[in-house]
């Protein structure tokens, strides 16, 4: 054997050293290929390991069905507050704020935390999501000033979270909606609101201002995830895109119930959604009524969701049925994304979606418990 190898080496005209160098080189080449191929999937996973462990820890602290059921069966709002005081995530805010405010702060802080620890490649989208608190606070300011509320009452409406909270708090003692917009000068929201200010001045309603903020938020969110270069970003784009499409569909359905036409609806739409592109949205806006909108959606993933509740809508005439079905669709989609990429962005999306659902459900329960003898069965129906 050894002689055979030595013969081969000498027949190739190689010295022992040259043969050794070739073997070494072959190993370097093979090794490099193996390392590159083997480590590629790890490079995808690695940035998500730390944030995923953290969000999964928080996911483990979310209320399960049994706990939500216990809360639904509580006798009054104080019982709900006392129950939540047993959970550190909520307890720290309940000592200083009302229940609803504590829930909003917790959700705002969650967005902020996720935006800070998300991997760089997807961080922009989560940073946009964290702006929700600021947008909610600006809306509260606008509503308060439209209603002529004073500083104290306006402060009550503000959620003490978000990057603009301190600045917004200073605006709580201004007198008018126009003053609020002037006070926002220098922020990214000022030009958005100034653009629709004439609409407010004409109608005296803050709705165009609120819609402009919503439109700005969703457009920015969609733009932040619009270059899906790998699977994680593709999932994020789908998750964000679904939200934009659902917001557009909800708006169109509401508008059709109110009998509004294309010209009235189009200023409030996000021009190009995810699955519903500009031409499709035009079709939907031009539909005669709710049934026409749902027919036009055929072939999209939203069609089945809405068709399933159409008979119930025809009986009750409640557009809230569609909204609930679409909300459930968003939650189910997020759940499927979390299972599709558990070692990537899936865990973060799954957690955020479930946290939103938890806070929304807790608010529903809290609101119901403020009413006298609100039926438990009705609360269960309202839960997401």
């Amino acid at each position: 054997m050894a002689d055979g190898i030595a013969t081969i080496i000498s027949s190739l005209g190689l010295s022992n050293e040259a043969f050794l160098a070739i073997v070494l080189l072959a190993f370097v080449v093979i090794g490099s290929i193996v390392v590159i191929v083997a480590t590629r999937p790890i490079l995808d996973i690695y940035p998500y390991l730390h944030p995923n462990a953290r969000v999964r820890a928080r996911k483990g602290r979310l209320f399960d069905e049994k706990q939500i059921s216990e809360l639904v069966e509580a006798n009054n709002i104080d019982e709900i507050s006392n129950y939540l005081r047993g959970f550190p995530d909520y307890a720290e805010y309940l000592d200083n704020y009302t229940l609803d405010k504590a829930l909003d702060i917790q959700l705002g802080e969650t967005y902020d935390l996720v935006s800070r620890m998300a991997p760089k490649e997807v961080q922009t989208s989560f940073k946009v999501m964290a702006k929700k608190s600021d947008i909610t606070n600006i809306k509260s300011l606008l509503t308060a000033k439209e209603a002529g509320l004073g500083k104290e009452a306006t402060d009550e409406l503000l959620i003490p979270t978000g990057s603009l909270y301190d600045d917004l708090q200073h605006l709580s003692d201004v007198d008018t909606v126009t003053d609020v917009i002037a006070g926002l000068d220098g922020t990214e929201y000022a030009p958005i609101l100034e653009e629709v200010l004439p609409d407010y001045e004409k109608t005296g309603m803050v709705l165009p201002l609120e819609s402009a903020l919503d439109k700005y938020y969703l457009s920015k969110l969609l733009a932040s995830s619009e270059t899906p270069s790998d699977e994680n970003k593709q999932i994020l784009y789908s998750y964000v895109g679904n939200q934009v499409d659902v917001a557009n569909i909800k708006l169109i359905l509401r508008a059709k119930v109110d009998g509004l036409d294309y010209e009235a609806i189009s200023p409030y739409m996000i021009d190009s959604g995810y699955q519903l592109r500009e031409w499709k949205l035009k079709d939907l806006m031009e539909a005669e009524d709710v049934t026409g909108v749902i027919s036009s959606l055929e072939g999209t993933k939203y069609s089945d969701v809405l068709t399933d509740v159409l008979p119930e809508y025809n009986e009750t005439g409640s557009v809230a049925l569609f909204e609930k079905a679409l909300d459930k669709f968003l939650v189910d989609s997020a759940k499927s994304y979390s299972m599709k990429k558990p070692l990537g962005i899936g865990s973060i999306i799954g957690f955020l979606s479930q946290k939103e659902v938890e806070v929304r459900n807790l608010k529903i329960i809290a609101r119901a418990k403020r009413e006298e003898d609100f039926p438990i069965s009705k609360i269960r129906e309202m839960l997401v």
Partner: protein
Amino acid sequence: MVDIALGTALAAIGAGVAIGFAGLGSGLGQGMAAAGSVGAVAEDNDMFARGIIFSALPETQAIYGFLIAILLLVFSGLLGGGSGLSDTAGIVAIGVGASIGFAGLGSGMGQGMAAASSVGAIVEDNDMFARGIIFSALPETQAIYGFLIAILLMVFGGILG
């Protein structure tokens, strides 16, 4: 310059491959497990001990590679001044190194991913600890196969004994 026989030099390559690739797999795996564990400990201090256990699991591949590398160095005459290996035994030594090296690379990375995922599952649900250990231990088998074959190659390839 030290005069080293070709067989011995080939065994040195085998030793390098053994610890090099096994160590790479172990390092990547341990890095993944540790990154997940740090995230878990940041949320729950009680996760420290369990995080350490899961982070230590992918260490074994490097140990296997290290053992094989030492054996190759000793029995090839590089350490301890033996008579050196024949050219044929030297080629076998490369196979020995590749066996544990590549098996350890795959095993270490796989174990790291499973361990990181298990840490995430445990911090979400405490009852997942035993099942997490079982799933994380599964990718160990590939390293054991590589280690066994490496030993067999050394025994029957004329390196050991």
